[in-house]
């Protein structure tokens, strides 16, 4: 029983400590952002500096150019050492939260644009606003407003899509339709440009014994893209943006959103997706497509460098078809932006680094590696990469981009991934799923406005 008493005493002690100070630290407020005039751009004169960079550019289209860029930066400025820490997207997302609040904070981090990540970091005052650097380095000219918006927050982290600039992306990305040209030719189908044509093509593919849409959703997140793809067919652009940026005045509970969800269910019933998609991981699913299984693959542009070598000339890419709205609407935005932590002691060097990896030369490197640079590099491309670049140009010029659905609220990612699995698995009704999403959205918007 003695040990019981000791434990009790310790617990009591802990309570007292606990009542005294809250966990975490409050860095918000008091932005110590340098004015443009005090920004140091002469990297060579900064002395010996080690820049720690955390990124998730592990796919071949992005990893190679970044390696080269890091090397060149260090060659140009021998006083700088770049310590690169690379993780996969999901791993980075988890470890970054711990790293950015720890004692040994990286200087440059690639933070997901979402409210749950970048938004939360901004709110806690852990990221540095980059507006002064943007002015000095002319980033406002380099990047169009729509791209900067995807990395912008108000300084309290509540408003997404406007306010201070907190990061810059290297690549663009959006959800489009990959297709197998050989199979389309065999089926006698032209790449469909409207939803009706697309559905007809799916039916034809199914009847011919093909897998119409290659799909694997065991991890849950690819489902966000499928639902978004159909929402883009039925709902108006601005409504999706209101939801996606978590702004007031939107609603999930609309006929259009329900129709999108219902169509997804119908497609499952019609057998348009790979059998057992909820049991297939994302990577095996696109790899199967690369091996010639499946006519279409609704997924992101980031797959280009991986799909191209496997399918060669048979690989095709197109923008999503237009649906009821008649407007081209495309889910997509930027790759994950590179941001500078507030704890970094070498913010000026970090900014120079970000400027370097987003330069025109950097964009050319990304293009050559088969990636989609965020802004045009001027390098001529051909084949599927050209189809993809043209699509990106068209989506941007028609202002067709809408944010990913999981950007909407901090819990949206978790909710949508599970709900779409259940929706498509036939375990949850359209009304229940839309109800869940609406509940999450409306309670978030109310909280965000209130507190």
């Amino acid at each position: 029983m003695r040990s019981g008493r000791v434990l009790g005493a310790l617990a009591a002690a802990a309570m007292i400590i606990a009542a005294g100070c809250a966990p975490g630290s409050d860095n918000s407020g008091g932005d110590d952002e340098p004015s443009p005039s005090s920004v140091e751009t002469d990297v060579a004169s900064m002395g010996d500096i080690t820049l720690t960079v955390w990124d998730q550019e592990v796919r071949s289209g992005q990893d190679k150019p970044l390696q080269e860029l890091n090397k060149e930066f260090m060659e140009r400025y021998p006083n700088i050492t770049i310590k690169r820490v690379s993780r996969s997207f999901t791993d980075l997302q988890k470890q970054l939260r711990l790293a950015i609040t720890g004692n040994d904070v990286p200087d440059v981090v690639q933070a997901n644009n979402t409210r749950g990540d970048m938004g939360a970091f901004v709110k806690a005052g852990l990221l540095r606003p980059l507006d002064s650097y943007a002015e000095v380095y002319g980033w406002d000219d380099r990047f169009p407003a729509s791209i900067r918006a995807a990395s912008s927050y108000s300084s309290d982290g509540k408003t997404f899509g406007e306010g201070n600039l907190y990061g810059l992306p290297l690549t663009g990305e959006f959800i489009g339709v990959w297709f197998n040209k050989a199979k389309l030719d065999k089926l006698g189908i032209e790449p469909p440009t409207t939803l009706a044509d697309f559905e007809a093509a799916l039916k034809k593919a199914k009847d011919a014994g093909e897998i119409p849409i290659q799909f694997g959703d065991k991890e849950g997140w690819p489902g966000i893209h499928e639902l978004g793809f159909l929402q883009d067919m039925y709902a108006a652009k601005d409504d999706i943006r209101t939801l996606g940026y978590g702004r007031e005045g939107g609603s999930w509970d609309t006929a259009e959103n329900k129709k999108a969800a219902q169509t997804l269910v119908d497609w499952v019933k019609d057998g348009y997706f790979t059998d057992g998609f909820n049991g297939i991981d994302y990577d095996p699913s696109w790899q199967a497509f690369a091996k010639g299984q499946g006519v279409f693959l609704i997924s992101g542009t980031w797959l280009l460098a991986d799909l191209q070598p496997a399918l060669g000339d048979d690989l095709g890419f197109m923008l999503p078809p237009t649906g009821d709205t008649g407007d081209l609407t495309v889910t997509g935005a930027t790759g994950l932006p590179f941001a500078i932590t507030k704890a970094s002691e070498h913010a000026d060097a970090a900014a120079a680094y970000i400027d370097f990896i987003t330069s025109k030369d950097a964009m050319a490197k990304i293009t050559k590696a088969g990636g989609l640079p965020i802004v045009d590099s001027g390098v001529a491309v051909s084949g599927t990469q050209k189809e993809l670049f043209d699509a990106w140009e068209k989506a941007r010029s028609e202002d067709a981009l809408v944010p990913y659905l999981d950007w909407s609220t901090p819990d949206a990612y978790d909710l949508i991934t599970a709900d779409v699995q259940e929706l498509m698995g036939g375990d949850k009704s359209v009304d229940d799923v839309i109800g869940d999403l609406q509940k999450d959205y409306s309670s978030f918007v109310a909280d965000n406005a209130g507190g």
Partner: protein
Amino acid sequence: MGDGAPERGSAAAKPTRSRTSYEPRKVAYLYLAPALVVFAAFLLWPLLHAVYLSLYEWDGIGLGTWVGLGNYKDVLTQPELREPFLHSLVLIVFFSVVPICLGLLLAWTMVRSQVRGGSVFRTAVFLPQVVAMVVVAIAWDRIYSPTGSINHVLSWLLPGTVTHAWLGEPSTALVCVGLVGSWVGTGLCMVLFLAGLSKVPRELYEAATLDGAGSLRQFFAIGLPHVRGELAVALTLTIVAALRTFDLVYVMTSGGPGTSTRVPSYEVYRWSLEDGKVGYGVTIALLLTAVILLITVLVNRVAEGDDT
């Protein structure tokens, strides 16, 4: 506790001396200190820190807000956590009941009949214990996949049957995760029971056979009572393994499809690291710890109860 034999001897030899002056209790703490320091640093401190975190609403990044016992109230009242704990109960069947029954059966068979190649078999059954859980999970993930071995064998045996996405359907996913637990746990249970049964003197069986007791009767009259201690150990280990299952779920299903394989440990991770509700997640962890502690104590009470 501290009464060693020599001390008792010396106390008996000099009964007039005051007992306390010769009591080497304080020195004992010195010997215990290294272990205590390690225990305190790696178990006690994190536990207390967890209690501290559980009293706050904290996103893991910014400044926490004091909520007192609010998290505890939420954890105990919100229906969303009932499902994961129910899933744990299902897992206990697969992680604990099934391996213990199979382990008993295997151990009994191996002790009572001279099986050729018994040691090879023993090793094979125990092997899953040696492999890291993540590796186990990845291997089974492949086996269960729509293009995996199970479906291959099924479609070969019964052509034309619809193959399953075993981990992709809510009705089968949890059971599939559980079966992996059975596969892993059986070896451990078998080895434990083998050790217990090997203590049984051969004469007992001979006597029982002479009395006309069949194998089943012998099992319940001789085998089972002799492995009571091992049974308690096996129960404790396997129930704890069931309740803290994380790696299998994380690698194989991420709690999906939907919410059908979410278990308490996974919820701890999901809430504290993914959803930025550290206080809430930690409170689940503490509740889980309490449940595990309670079950361990109960199992040991029951196992020891009749002996003394």
